[in-house]
């Protein structure tokens, strides 16, 4: 399950990471080493074992439908780099 250079480039782009060619090569070899360890798991017989979606053996941790007051707007916006008229301001989104 070796990972290709193109795949590393693709994942980097999705994560909005700007990597040079030499960095991409380093990540490719490091990721492949990591995936190599996981391939050992393929040796294990898992017949009859259900996939476990979570490490803890709990389920149905839910909250009742009761509304609570959250943060004040002033407080919520306090750490925003930019805000205006009660809105968080972000750079204009240009679609790729």
């Amino acid at each position, binding site marked *: 399950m070796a990972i290709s250079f193109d795949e590393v480039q693709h994942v980097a782009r*999705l994560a*909005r990471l700007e990597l040079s060619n030499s960095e991409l090569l380093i990540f490719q070899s490091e990721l492949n080493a990591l995936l190599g360890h996981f391939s050992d798991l393929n040796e294990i017989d898992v017949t009859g074992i259900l996939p476990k*979606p*979570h*490490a*803890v053996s*709990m*389920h*149905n*941790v*839910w*909250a*009742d*439908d*009761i*509304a*609570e007051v*959250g*943060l004040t*707007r002033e407080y*919520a*916006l306090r750490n925003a780099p*930019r805000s*205006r*008229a*009660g*809105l*968080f*301001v*972000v*750079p*204009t*989104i240009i*679609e*790729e």
Partner: protein
Amino acid sequence: MFCRCEVAFGGEPNTRVCPVCLGLPGALPVPNKKAIEFVLRTALALNCKIAMRSVFHRKNYFYPDLPKGFQVSQYGETNPLGYHGFLDVPNAEGGIKRIGIRRIHLEEDTGKLMHLPSGGSGVDYNRAGVPLMEVVTDFPPDINTPDEAREYMVQLRQILLYLGVCDGKMEEGSMRCEPNISIRLEGAEELGTKTELKNLNSFRSVQLGIQFETRRQIAVLESGGKVAQETRGWNDATETSFAMRLKESENDYRYFEDPDLIPMEFTEEYIESLRATLPELPLAKYRRYMADYGMTTKEAGVLTGDKHWAGFFEQGVALGADPKLFSNWMNSELAKYLNETGQVIHADLADDHHALSKITPNHLLGLIVLIQDGTISGKTAKDIFREMLVSGDQASGILAKSNLTQISDDEQIKAWCKEVIQNNPDPVAKYKSGVINVIGFLVGQVMKQSQGRANAQLVQELMKAELENA
């Protein structure tokens, strides 16, 4: 969905936010039990299989409509709470169109972005994290026309309102429709590239939008072009669609199980207990009204279109009303009055702009009984009905206070007939010479004399007898 912020429409931006829906570091989400229950109830009503074990996933993307860099959703074919169901949509001919449901999953809604004239985009996170149920229809699609899409939406909305899981207000975005549209050559199997349409905020725009998009795709292909897979927005004012963004392929979202959220597991008993609480759904009611009360598809459709309207009808029938007469009065006079005044017949529907009507099923029944036993004429009934809606008094009470009782007194009617015969020698002569239908005029004169209160059938009878003697 995963925080306890209030769900509401509108309001000042960023006033219903908390560390969880703002995605602040360290905040931990906990799912709302009621929302899960609502989705399960909907899934059962739409004949779905239930995922007895189900998890939430993260859908990763960079767009500031959610502050976390991902949306919590449910991925997979059999992991969403409901899957492989269907919705039967009745048509005007009394037939059924079955629309397959691929899956029903639960996710969180996104915030709203608005363009700022001063530069940049402003984000309001009030809506971010609100529970959002997505109902996905089958592919290849069962919906073949814009009309079918509209009918499917109408039926789905009715069911959601019957279940009480949604207020169905498309204009407020609490119910949305994002149709995927593709075309093919007549007779061809394979469908062309699809586009998705957003911003449809009424049933009408659903229909118009799909019509427009179909024509647009045909024009693109006929001019030798290619349909691009993209999301398009609907502009209600110009009735056209515009390109919004090219669709990212599914893999790019890198779905994975959300480690902050604990898996869900349901028992058969729990699911069956939910199934037991489902109300009779609109289609079942519609069929029952036709079978039990001999209603037409139209009558049954109007009565079952709204659960409170159907409830009003059923209360009347339970009190002993004749179903046909009762439904006729509801769908004509009562509907007309409510339409004129903006009043509603159930407290749940009342708000600042819609007052609760004073009329109850018992009021309407009381009126119908007076018509049936001949105490009042149909015309008088309408007058009493209006009075009843204003005062909230029972029909019998209004009648007692007024002069509106139907007159069936032979002697009184005979006296009027004699008077009319005496005052109208010409029509009487005509009648004598064989122009029988002139009797209508003479009866009309008696009705006028009685101010509409005389029993018209009796007048007809007695007038005939008097004319023989005249």
